[in-house]
């Protein structure tokens, strides 16, 4: 009975274990303390950085860029995905082109986008949006194409027109897969944004923070920035999972 009640606490075991291991390693000095600061030092750096420090600003910048690129990707990717999924012929015609660019590392597009947009935020956001949009397009199209046959037939027997079937059935059927696309899209966007902040002449953002701390050999701050980026990624994913549960209540049932 008590064992059952303690089960929700299981995820905390892994976290606690990691901190214990990390503490032991730094305490015993198995690793050069310059390379691996103690958890407490790292936590202090994270706190001071976020609480009015530069890292708080960097965090907000990265959130803004990731959110903007994901939003653009969704606005473009969802309608294109629907159009693609609704017609087998359109899908077959464009499948290769989209799959090719989806397979191209988005980071390889940086030089091109630099030429197009310069070194400002536009480049970072547009490369991330480009990468995320392709992921979203594919997932939405896949969701629309894989709408349950019986459900489409059921709508058809009840006299639904093609357009009705698209809006009343296919779109809703594709929502769970659309959320998979959005989750993967936002993760990819964050990856691209952080990389861009490191190397594309950036003055702020978590990527810049990690890179700068490493250059200055400020290891507690570097680890703190890495953790902040990790927390951001996890939080964004969680946000989409909660949104999915709220709006796609039937998902997986």
């Amino acid at each position, binding site marked *: 009975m008590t064992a059952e009640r303690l089960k929700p606490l299981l995820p905390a075991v892994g976290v606690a274990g990691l901190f214990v291991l990390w503490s032991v390693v730094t305490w015993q000095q198995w690793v050069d303390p310059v390379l691996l600061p103690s958890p407490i030092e790292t936590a202090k750096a994270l706190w001071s950085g976020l609480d009015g420090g530069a890292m708080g600003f960097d965090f907000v910048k990265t959130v803004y860029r990731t959110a903007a690129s994901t939003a653009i990707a969704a606005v473009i990717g969802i309608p294109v995905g629907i159009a693609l999924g609704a017609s087998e012929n359109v899908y077959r015609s464009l499948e290769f082109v989209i799959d090719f660019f989806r397979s191209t590392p988005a980071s390889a597009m940086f030089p091109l986008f630099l030429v197009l947009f310069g070194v400002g935020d536009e480049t970072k956001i547009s490369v991330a949006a480009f990468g995320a949009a392709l992921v979203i397009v594919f997932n939405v199209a896949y969701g629309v194409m894989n709408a*349950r*046959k*019986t*459900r489409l*037939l*059921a709508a*058809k*027997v*009840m*006299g*639904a027109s093609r357009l*009705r079937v698209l809006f*009343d*059935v296919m779109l*809703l059927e594709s*929502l769970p897969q659309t959320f998979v696309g959005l989750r993967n899209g936002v993760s990819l966007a964050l990856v691209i944004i952080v990389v861009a902040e490191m190397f594309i002449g950036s003055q702020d953002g978590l990527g810049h923070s990690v890179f700068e701390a490493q250059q200055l050999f400020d290891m507690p701050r570097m680890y703190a920035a890495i953790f902040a980026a990790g927390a951001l990624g996890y939080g964004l994913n969680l946000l989409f999972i909660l949104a999915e549960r709220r709006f*796609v*209540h*039937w998902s997986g*049932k």
Partner: protein
Amino acid sequence: MNALQVLRPHTRGELTATPETVGKRPHVTIRGLSKRFGSTTIYDRFDLDIPRGELVSVFGPNGCGKSTLINMIAGLIPPDAGQILFDGRRLEEIKFGYVFQNYREALFPWLRAFDNIAYPLKMMHVDSAERRKRTEKLVAHLGVKIDLNLYPYQMSGGQQQLVSIMRALVVQPEILFLDEPFSALDYEMTLFMREQLQRIFLETGTTTVLVSHDLEEAVFLADRVLLLSRHPALVADFPLIAAARPRTDATLSDAEFVRIKAHCLEVFQREVRRA
């Protein structure tokens, strides 16, 4: 379309007053129906009359085209040739209901049960107040005791299939098709649902075509059992099941019922062995 609805009480009266409904004007006439899948001929110039206001079960060997038949009648599969008319009218001119075997995939999980039932009315451009009214009327009429504010995935299999059946009935169909509606349910639920379907049939008197893979079910529910041969399917027999309604567990052991069921089984086995 409207004339028929007015007529329905009379046809129902006919049914209960004279169980021998032989010689009644057919509701569905099928002439010269042909269908091939690849090199397999499922139907070759197939003819059939389905009597009005009766519940017809379709039974036959595996793969003989039971579901194909009702899917062609209901317009889900186009026939290669032939004509199917409902009182001389085409499918597009009538209202019908169709119940799928797989209720889980046939209902809309994003709509509450109530809105699932009302959905076909939306397709007929009935306004929302009227949709609510008609759906509530149907629910009250059938005496269904399910919380219709639930989503389908919150319901048991039997409840979901009952919602499917109500969705098919809400348009007041002239004809109702059911494709193995209970085969995904456990035995207890199947027995309960047979009773529900019989009750619904008695209440509405709607011409019903039911595909079944269970001979007892086919005979128990039917006014007539359509026994098909192996493909290309022919009518092996089309016996009348005269047992009075409502049929109960006692009907199952009734001498005449046992006899007709044995007869159906004999015809079925003859057709199976013919391969």
